[in-house]
């Protein structure tokens, strides 16, 4: 049985009810001399930002729990008439610290964080997106492979957000895309066939890559990763989905650009 979207409230004082939630740390910012602001994706509360007092101090009670992508349990409180939430305490459930020692994996992990931060609405619990992020992080940690986990993540983030374009037919005329696949470019929301293709739609994603996505992304990620190696077309398909994500969030993704430089 999955965790219900109800927070257990532990009252520590009559004015400050504590909310308990699981969360994944997306990133942290420095606040003043010794505090951190954590951008979090909380399982029961959705995406939010909370202040962790003293978190930068060596003897801070947070230790390494608030490092990027940590899976944690948090106790949060909200002060009346303040927009920011405050952390009361945190407990590390699963660390993704060590895997990020590899710069390529760090880059991939921070890409997940950036997409989650941009695509998920604030204060809206999203159990499926939460499980997706956790699954992909674990896959990244276990396999050290970037391509399949990121493609899987892109596909499902778009699908869960309702932004996944039709992968079988032209978004303008509806004709089947077939082996040639479709064309896209900056600002695209879907694929165009050769006839409908606009001058800006310079990128192509092949029919083979699209067919691969339609099957591969519908088996559990672990089972897909158990197959020997990433099929051709992964990078091609990722390129397309990343473009759609950028269209939807209306900005360039910093980590996408940096991954491009690495290849």
């Amino acid at each position: 049985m999955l965790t219900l979207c109800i927070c257990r409230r532990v009252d520590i004082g009559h004015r400050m009810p504590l909310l308990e939630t699981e969360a994944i740390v997306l990133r942290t910012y420095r606040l003043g001399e010794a505090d951190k602001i954590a951008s979090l994706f909380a399982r029961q509360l959705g995406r939010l930002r909370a202040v962790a007092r003293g978190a930068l101090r060596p003897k801070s009670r947070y230790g390494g729990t608030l490092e990027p992508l940590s899976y944690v349990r948090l106790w949060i409180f909200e002060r009346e008439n303040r927009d920011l939430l405050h952390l009361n305490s945190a407990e590390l459930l699963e660390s993704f610290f060590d895997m990020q020692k590899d710069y390529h994996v760090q880059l991939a992990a921070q890409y997940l964080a950036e997409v989650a931060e941009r695509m998920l609405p604030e204060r809206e619990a999203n159990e499926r997106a939460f499980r997706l992020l956790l699954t992909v992080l674990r896959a990244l940690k276990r396999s050290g492979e970037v391509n399949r986990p990121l493609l899987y993540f892109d596909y499902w983030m778009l699908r869960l957000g309702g932004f996944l374009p039709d992968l079988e037919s032209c978004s303008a005329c509806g004709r089947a895309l077939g082996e040639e696949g479709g064309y896209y470019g900056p600002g695209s929301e879907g694929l165009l066939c050769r006839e409908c293709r606009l001058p800006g739609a310079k990128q192509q994603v092949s029919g083979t890559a699209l067919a691969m996505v339609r099957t591969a992304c519908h088996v559990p990620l672990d089972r897909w990763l158990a197959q020997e190696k990433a099929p051709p077309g992964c990078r091609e398909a990722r390129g397309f989905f990343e473009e759609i994500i950028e269209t939807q969030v209306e900005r360039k993704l910093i980590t996408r650009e940096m991954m491009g430089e690495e290849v």
Partner: protein
Amino acid sequence: MKDYAEPLARLIDELKRLPGIGQKSAQRIAFHLERAPREDVERLAAAILDAKDKIRLCSVCNNLTELDPCEYCTDPRRDGEVICVVETPYNVIGVEKTREFRGQYHVLHGVLSPLQGIGPDQLKLKNLLERLRSGKVKEIIVATSPTVEGEATAVYLSKLIKPLGVKVSRIAMGVPVGSELEFADEVTMLKAIEGRREM
């Protein structure tokens, strides 16, 4: 009507842009300067400009310095065979406080942090590699923070440097995970240097 006369409002706005200075502190400082004798304010303004004009990056190690190369790079008593790599000029002072390290420094001016757009090209690595190619350096101690970013940077450096035949070690013990190095006390920093490990 505005709260403050225009010049005072402008001063408060400028002060607020400084790190750790909020509206209240900015007001306090601005009023203090208003009441202070003109000579005091002139001395402060001159000191700010003087530091801005005279301080530059050492061409060898990227530390902040008045003379180029800096005193750490030119001091004959310091051991040129060991280089301690740090994130910021601030961290140099932290390591110096231990009085235990007698080698030289290299300041990266950041750590790998993709979300902030900081990749290897944004770090000051070029002149580090030049120093290593001179053949004089035997060991690199990587003293980046024990954070995800600090660790990724250390591992990246290790992969880059080891093929050049230079020993790479990393500070370890004493600095808790998730904290920033500049908050480490001297004892913690000393332990960190003693407990370095080869990578």
